[in-house]
């Protein structure tokens, strides 16, 4: 009912694209440290990575809800590309009048503890500090960072790693998570601009958390699909294991958690159009909390249903579950976001809880 035709068409075409270009071989190969260039080029060709930008900036004025839905599709296929990061980098850069790129981009800081500072240097700037666990920094054609300037937050756009020191790292799905350090690195005046148009470290962190929550809901759909299919194929005691009630009950729980994850991520996505930033933060926090809970329960069941085969590199389940275990902690884990939900609700007071839930 609420799904628009444009959205449906976009998702169908994304689905076909990933079916063609994002096989298990592609996902496996990306884990060896080689960027999935062919896949990226095919995705970039669609214009989706920069579609949120205004037409004047080379975008398509697309709805964020559609782009998040596309992230969910990409995650079903464990696509080893910085699609969310490029979308968010493009958003932050374009809103503040900085250059964007057709190539893969990344954006940061992705961790609230990191600090980057900009100091004036003649008519340019000097950038200091470190952005840790920056997704795909080693492969990014542009890196977009938010730093503390003398008069408040500023967005910085770098070509590649832009003179920073790169220390390669990865998450347990072997997706690049690199640390980029800057020691008084000189930037020209047009490489930095004050934040505008709703861009801020807080907003980036929220949108990043929501991107991970949405991607997790897609990865959960995939894990569930694998588990249900496998249970119907795998024979033990002379019949498919899906015929055993114990297995059926587990799969029913898996399906429930997956449905809850998709619904929770959608709650966060809808909140992006909320006028009230507190409410946006509240609903995104709800999303990351609930999806994280679902991921923990669902990964356990998906593996239990698969038995030993699910524990192998050869079988695809681990592509989804290792991502779920990684993404669960990125942009803040569910305990952190749950504490935000609770703190916000308590600050408003017990009697404001029901209005908080209903007055959206």
């Amino acid at each position: 009912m609420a799904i628009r035709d444009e959205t449906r068409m976009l998702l169908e075409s994304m689905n076909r694209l990933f079916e063609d270009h994002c096989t298990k071989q592609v996902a496996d190969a990306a884990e060896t440290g080689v960027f999935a260039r062919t896949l990226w080029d095919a995705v970039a060709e669609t214009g989706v990575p920069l579609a949120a930008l205004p037409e004047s900036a080379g975008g398509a004025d697309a709805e964020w809800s559609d782009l998040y839905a596309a992230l969910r599709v990409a995650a079903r296929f464990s696509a080893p590309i910085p699609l969310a990061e490029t979308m968010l980098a493009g958003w932050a850069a374009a809103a503040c009048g900085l250059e964007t790129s057709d190539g893969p981009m990344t954006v940061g800081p992705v961790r609230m503890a990191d600090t980057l500072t900009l100091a004036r240097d003649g008519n340019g700037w000097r950038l200091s500090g470190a952005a840790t666990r920056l997704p795909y920094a080693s492969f990014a054609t542009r890196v977009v960072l938010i730093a503390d300037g003398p008069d408040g937050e500023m967005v910085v756009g770098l070509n590649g790693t832009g003179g920073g020191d790169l220390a390669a790292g990865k998450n347990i799905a072997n997706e690049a998570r690199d640390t980029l350090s800057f020691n008084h690195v000189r930037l020209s005046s047009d490489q930095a601009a004050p934040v505008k148009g709703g861009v801020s470290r807080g907003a980036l962190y929220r949108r990043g958390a929501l991107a991970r929550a949405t991607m997790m809901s897609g990865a959960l759909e995939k894990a569930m699909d694998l588990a249900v299919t496998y249970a119907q194929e795998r024979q033990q005691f002379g019949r498919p294991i899906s015929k055993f009630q114990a297995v059926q009950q587990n799969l029913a729980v898996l399906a429930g958690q997956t449905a809850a994850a998709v619904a929770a991520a959608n709650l966060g996505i809808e909140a992006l159009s909320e006028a009230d930033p507190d409410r946006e933060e509240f609903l995104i926090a709800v999303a990351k909390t609930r999806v994280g809970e679902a991921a923990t329960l669902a990964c356990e069941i998906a593996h239990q249903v698969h038995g030993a085969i699910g524990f192998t590199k050869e079988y695809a389940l681990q592509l989804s579950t290792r991502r779920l275990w990684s993404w669960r902690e990125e942009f803040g884990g569910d305990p952190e976001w749950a504490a935000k939900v609770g703190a916000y609700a308590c600050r408003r007071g017990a009697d404001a809880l029901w209005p908080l839930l209903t007055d959206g």
Partner: protein
Amino acid sequence: MATPTFRFDPVEMPPEAREIRKEVRAFIKEHEHLMGFSRGEFNRDFSRAMGKKGWIGMTWPKQYGGHERTSFERYVVIEEMLVAGAPLSAHYTGDRQSGPNMLRFGTEEQKNYFLPRIAAGELAFCIGMSEPNSGSDLAGTRTRAVKVDGGYKINGTKLWTSNAHRADYAILFCKMSGDGKEEPDRHAGATQFLLDLKTPGLDIRPVINLLGEHHFNEIFLTDVFVPDNRLLGKEGNGWNQVTSELSFERSAPDRFLVLFQMLREMLRMAGPTPDKATAAALGKLISQLATLRSMSISIAGMLQEGLNPNNEAAVVKDLGTRYEQDIPVVARQLFPTEPELEAIDLYTSMIARSTMNAPRFSIQGGTREILRGIIARGLGLR
């Protein structure tokens, strides 16, 4: 993907839902003295007052006393009432399932007689499904109807019949008496009747629950006569009808809102600046609730479209009962107290009531195991 997925499209409430919410909150304020916590109070005056407001049978056709409002407006009325702890028992069963069941399967005469009375809050229904030896296995019902001149003669026993001692009618699920041989089709002969609870031959006895309260009853039926015009639907179509009735029962939001007040008291105990662990424990429950509510509203959207969200309703009920059963568990970890039902301290009495009520959440309206079986069937596993 090959696997069927359950559909919970995001739904936005229409503006009229926002309007009615204000009205309902004002009404609740007016009746504040009647609100309680997880008590299932039966109050005919309150039901009549709700009937006057047009808040029973809200989505039914006007010609049968309904109000042709949207499923969303109905949803808002129900969720506000549940959260407030309003005494809904005298009309809720009729509104939620008996009325819709009649609307679907009843005769013109039945619809004209019963529906306006239910919608006015005048006629209370209860559910005549479970029996001593037929709980989850509803098809194993032993209550038998025999065709006699002008009607049916019914013998058997019903159990766990909430409010039978206060209601006016039950929708009775039973089987037509066969030739005594085991039917190969376990659903064959199943039939529903609209049973007037004042009919001679009925013996309604209380079954006291573990809180010491009287909601349940056991009903003994001895040669109970039901006239032809109180057969609901068709003889032998009862399985189809009762399945539909159960899906009405399960799609309601009362599967995750009855302990809301307890969650609210936990927030009060936590105060405005709780420590991080307390905030996280409460935040997890609130996140579950917000998600359940959005899934449930999505179901209201499907009902509005005329769809049959059977599987989705089972998913929400399964997740909802888990969440509600977790509330007293989390409460005792965060704010320990020795539970006492009649304690003056509100929180202490709530933890007593919710701890004792919790087991029934995953039993009534279909056990957790039955619901997960339904979900598994929806996944194509059975």
